[in-house]
């Protein structure tokens, strides 16, 4: 019963933070207070979220990082924590308007979509899930940053003084943050791919879901690699990098969706 209350409190807190962020972005001049309150409410949501994951794991007697459903939830939690940690230093406050609703979606998705996963066996797979969860958290932030970049870039190109005039982070700050998030997340994704491929090779189920997931995972890796390499070699930054990052994240989400909607793999768990 207590776990249920904490879960719903988490949902309400994430929703409230999202509303406050949107309100602030829509009318920064009149909603300055909302702008100050939003990160605090988001921090409260993250604390409640962490409490929920701990209590639910204890009750279900499963390690959080060894369950795909908890994993998705933890990815959202880590993304929120990371955002709260760097938002001021990287000047990406407005990204909260992306982080809060996405975290809310992940929390609800992990709870209500698909059947519960009985857990993943073995330390090797725990490493696999941990790498992917951390990587997804960073990619979530990177794609959110990319979306904000595209919104702001479009406004500046079209010379519009919109209602969010001057309130989104500077373009260069968004571009730099997106690049750093990708750079940090890419090794984790690579580790996830290696461990996932090895595990998939071991169980050799060959189901369509497994193949789709593997394909999406490799596409994610190729896209992110391309974004990073083209930036380093040809100076592809800004809009092109933003589109690449968003596309890569959509493939990463596709992998998660396959995990969440498919049935349990005979107690074996899944791999990226």
């Amino acid at each position, binding site marked *: 019963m207590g776990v249920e209350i904490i879960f719903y409190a988490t949902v309400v807190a994430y929703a409230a933070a999202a509303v406050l962020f949107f309100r602030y972005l829509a009318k920064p001049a009149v909603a300055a207070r909302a702008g100050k309150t939003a990160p605090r409410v988001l921090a409260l949501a993250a604390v409640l979220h962490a409490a929920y994951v701990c209590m639910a794991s204890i009750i279900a007697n499963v390690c959080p990082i060894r369950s795909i459903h908890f994993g998705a939830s933890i990815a959202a939690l880590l993304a929120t924590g990371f955002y709260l940690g760097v938002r001021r230093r990287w*000047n990406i406050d407005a990204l909260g308007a992306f982080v809060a609703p996405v975290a809310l979606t992940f929390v609800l998705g992990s709870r209500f979509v698909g059947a519960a996963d009985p857990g993943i066996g073995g330390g090797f797979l725990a490493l696999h899930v941990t790498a992917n969860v951390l990587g997804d958290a960073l990619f979530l932030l990177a794609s959110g940053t990319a979306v904000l970049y595209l919104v*702001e870039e479009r406004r500046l190109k079209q*010379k519009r*003084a919109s209602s969010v005039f*001057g309130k*989104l982070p500077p373009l*260069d700050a968004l571009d730099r943050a997106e690049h750093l998030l990708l750079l940090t997340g890419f090794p984790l994704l690579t580790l996830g791919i290696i461990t996932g491929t090895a595990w998939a090779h071991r169980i050799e189920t060959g189901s369509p879901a497994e193949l789709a997931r593997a394909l999406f995972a490799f596409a994610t890796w190729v896209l992110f690699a391309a974004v990073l390499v083209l930036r380093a070699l040809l*100076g592809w930054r*800004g*809009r092109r990098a933003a589109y690449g990052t968003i596309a890569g994240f959509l493939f990463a989400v596709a992998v998660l969706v396959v995990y969440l909607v498919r049935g349990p793999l005979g107690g074996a768990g899944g791999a990226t």
Partner: protein
Amino acid sequence: MIVVVGLSHREAPLDVRERLAIDGEGIAELLRALLQRPAIREALCVSTCNRIEVYAVGQQDSDEHTLAAAEAVRHALIELAGNQGAAQGVGPYLRTHVRRDAVLHLFRVASSLDSLVVGEPQILGQVRDALEMAKAAGSIGKYLDRATNRALHVAKRVRSETAIGEGQVSVASVAVDLARQIFGELTGRTALLIGAGEMAEGAAKLLVKAGAKLLVVNRSLERARQLALEFGGGARPWEELAAALVQADVVIASTSAKVFVVTRAMVAKAMKARRGRSLFFIDIAVPRDVDPAVNDIDNVYLYDIDNLSNLVAESMQGRRAEAERAEALVQHEVRVFETWTETLGVTATIVALRAKVRAALAAEVDRTLTGRLKHLTDADRKALETMIDAAVNKLLHTPTSRIKALAADPRGDDLVKAVHHLFDLADAVRDIDAAQKPDSPANEGENPADPEEPARRGQGSTPVAAGSEGVTLALPGGRETLGR
């Protein structure tokens, strides 16, 4: 009477205004060309990045002559666009105002009520410059001189009596804000100044204040060095412009070149060398210095004067109430000016009447002073002269007031004719009118823009200057001002 023909940001986009963009020498040439046209007696040109307008006065005060003057100015402007190589005409964009509307327009322009950024302060100086240029070109006479000076007076009143200029957001400050939206902190960034101009230097100053390093490229390396020294930056010769684009983050272009000095190909090449780093162009020049196509290149942002001004205007919507107060003030001043132009028609009559009465009294006193009163001292004689002036004032105060009061009335003409007839003033009035024309031999060598000048010097046959607050007379016995 006064007519204005021209175009502004209201009806003509930037690429149309570029077809008529002229600098100081071009304005002088235009004014000289206008004076060559028989229909035009006076001319003044206000040329800014947002407008080019020619104010003119016809040979006589009639609808026919006024419209002829308007047509002559219109032709001159269309010819100017053709001479500047404009492939398309400017005719459809030219707007004309005549008489009261023309004066109202001039007052509104000078008061910054017609500006894209209402309340901006630069226009006052630009109208003052226009007046100086017209004076230098010898194209200004009593009507335009009076109207322009009143416009400057109104503009000052508007600025001091309303809050229209407060909390001013300038084009330069918006440009710097935009740079911050692209780059964040500007410390360590490089701002490149191409050419120079008041607004460009203002933006450069703000960028340097925000921590940017300044680089100046100018066709004159000497001028570039001067500017660089002033702002503590570096100077580069014109040939190194392409290389400077690789180094810069913010580029402020403000040359008087007639063609693009920064082309799409130059920027595309620079962006490769920059490895995609963002580049922000602020093009304040009219005609534009930077090819608009550069805005299509990834990570390149180009804002021209219209883009910047629109952003400024949008940020100042709250200034409407002050603008309404300023409009009321301008309307009042236009009525004052109209009264002046109406009394202008009777001024010669008043001057002639006063001169005749004073001359008659002075002749009688002179005769007495050489006869029975020749023993009087100089002090006594001076006292008698003062007495003559006082007598003239008292005697003619009521008739003068009534003539002026009826100046705008249809009955005024009859009254003036009656006065001419009763006092035999027709010839004297004709002489005074002739002396007041700007091309009169009596005005040669004098500043035609300053009708008070002959009176101040106490010479010439132009003994009058009429002000809206009264009529100033130069009489043999000294000057005096009559209240209205």
